[in-house]
């Protein structure tokens, strides 16, 4: 068991190293001074307090979508809806932040709840389509992402828009709904506490409750789960609703903590980033924040590089893709694992 964990860590490390090397090769193809550009990329997040702050801030929404994807992946579901759930959760929280009139803390909680409910509905739709009609949750959730994007933009444009602002943004959220920011230099905010709460809640659910056990069993071996009497369809539905709620909550936290008025024109892409994070964290909620910090580091580094060097920030997508491909490749380094196992068996044999 310990050897396995060590091997997984090694494989993740090698995959990341390989991805960085490929990223460097691509950088040197387009850049006049690739070493300098890549230096900005790697050191960027640590070059000022503000950047370090924005690096930690960026990890917060990524943790939420990473948790959402980890939940549904644990149950073997390929629901790709975190993208749309996060988006619609942010829209719902914006509406609640503008229209509700409540005292401070209660208003914040109401907005967070609105985001959770909106996201949960986003998980319920593909979930019920799968459970009742056996429709592929993969295709359904991908379609739903576009529906939510258009629906959200409709609500912002026609019902929540700030007519006095030049750009297409919503009215500002009432101050009573805000999650307070800690300092003036960074935007790091009290949503971090909500985040850690959800991290532990997800861990507790998956590893300490019977429903969580049923979900993981369904993910590992659906036939076994079915024959041992687990209501697999209900479990799948439950886990997709929970995943949706977590993603929607993430969108709400981002609105209340960072933006305070809705200003996205397109989906910010945290949902698919959540897939990378879930893969790196092996669907373990406790590892999700670490993986999110790592991805945020890559993202902020890429932004800094794009600012100071002649390489655009999208270079990081190449690194991300290679990481997903290599970390999930079961046969990658399998020969090494085989030798490792063989060595241990031989040692044991000679010891006895």
């Amino acid at each position: 068991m310990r050897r396995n964990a060590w091997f997984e860590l090694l494989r993740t490390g090698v995959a990341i190293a390989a991805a960085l090397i490929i990223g460097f090769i691509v950088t040197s193809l387009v850049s006049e001074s690739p070493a300098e550009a890549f230096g900005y990329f790697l050191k960027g997040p640590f070059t000022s307090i503000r950047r370090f702050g924005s690096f930690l801030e960026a990890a917060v929404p990524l943790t939420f979508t990473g948790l959402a994807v980890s939940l549904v992946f644990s149950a073997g579901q390929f629901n790709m809806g975190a993208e749309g759930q996060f988006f619609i959760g942010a829209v719902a929280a914006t509406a609640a932040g503008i229209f509700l009139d409540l005292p401070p803390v209660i208003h914040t909680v109401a907005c967070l709840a609105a985001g959770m409910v909106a996201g949960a509905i986003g998980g319920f739709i593909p979930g019920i389509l799968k459970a009742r009609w056996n429709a592929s949750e993969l295709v359904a959730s991908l379609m739903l992402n576009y529906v939510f994007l258009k629906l959200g933009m409709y609500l912002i444009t026609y019902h929540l828009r700030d007519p006095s602002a030049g750009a297409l943004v919503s009215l500002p959220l009432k101050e009573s709904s805000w999650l307070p920011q800690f300092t003036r230099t960074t935007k790091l905010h009290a949503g971090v506490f909500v985040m850690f709460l959800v991290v532990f809640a997800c861990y507790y659910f998956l590893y300490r409750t019977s429903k969580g056990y049923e979900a993981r069993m369904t993910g590992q071996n659906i036939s076994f789960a079915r024959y041992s009497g687990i209501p697999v369809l209900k479990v799948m539905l439950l886990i997709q609703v929970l995943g949706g709620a977590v993603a929607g909550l993430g969108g709400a936290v981002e609105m209340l903590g960072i933006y305070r008025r809705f200003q996205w024109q397109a989906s910010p892409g945290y949902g698919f980033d959540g897939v990378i994070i879930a893969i790196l964290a092996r669907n373990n909620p406790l590892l999700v924040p670490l993986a999110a910090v790592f991805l945020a580091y890559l993202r902020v580094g890429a932004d800094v590089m794009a600012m100071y060097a002649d390489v655009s920030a999208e270079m990081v997508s190449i690194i991300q893709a290679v990481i997903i491909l290599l970390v999930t490749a079961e046969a990658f380094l399998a020969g090494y694992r085989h030798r490792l196992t063989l060595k241990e068996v031989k040692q044991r044999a000679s010891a006895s």
Partner: protein
Amino acid sequence: MHPLLRAVFSASFAASILRVTTPVLFASLGAVVADLSGVVNIALEGMMLISALMGVIASAFTGSAWVGFLAGVASGILMGLVLGYFHLKLKTNVILAGIALNLLAAEGTVFLLYAVAHDKGVSSSLPSKVMPEIQIPIIKDIPVIGAIIGKQNVLTYLALIAVVMIYLFLYKTSFGLRLRAVGENPDAADSVGISVHKVQFIALALSGALAGMGGVHLSMGYVSWFSRNMTSGRGFIALAAKALGRNHPIGAFLASLLFGFTDALSNYMQSLRVPGEFIQMIPYVVTLVVLAVYSGRQLKSGRSSNE
């Protein structure tokens, strides 16, 4: 008659259905081929996107639309082989590998566009070419039908021909039989001496080639430029069309037409006083509803294992 209804029953509307169906049709044929060989190709979206950009770049640098077309198809094939390498050789989960390729395509195309055209939005600064429109001599003079299929982009005709070709390939050739055998039961196929991996590699390459043609149509036929994320989910809709069409080329064709109809309808309805967001939502909502209704019928007819 209501102006919208009059528009819907016009020949030019039918012609526009064929035009917007083309990219989805190519991709859904690609989905069918991959699926019948036993591999779910969720990377169609990314394949289309990369091919759309490569077609624009190659045609801009060579001045030839056909070189652009070939470059687009070649990129699709390459993506198919990469997907095959990771899924078949390195045992990556095929859906995760597909997601990785889609992410790579979504941002990688922006990266490449910036490197080539110094723009992160559209490729309009590149002098890219457009695939020609063709008039079919006798048919174009037939009333109504001529207005619908008499004059279309060459790729639209190619897509219609591809439906027949893929059907014949899958159901009337020995390789098609082997491909379906591999998808149906890889162990059985292996036991009679069929190289499962080789067949699946070829299926993925073909799937990528078809998606590539769809991508080229988007940037060099449907419009005359590449813009970021211009596929906007068509690769995923193609997966839905494959599912609705029961993994059959003709079925996928009909399902793609349904999508084309809703997409063309939403283009027509832009002029009405309905918020644009709702109109743009139509194709996705229709796909969702049809997927649910259709899958439900499938479940009822095959209600033995799941109960």
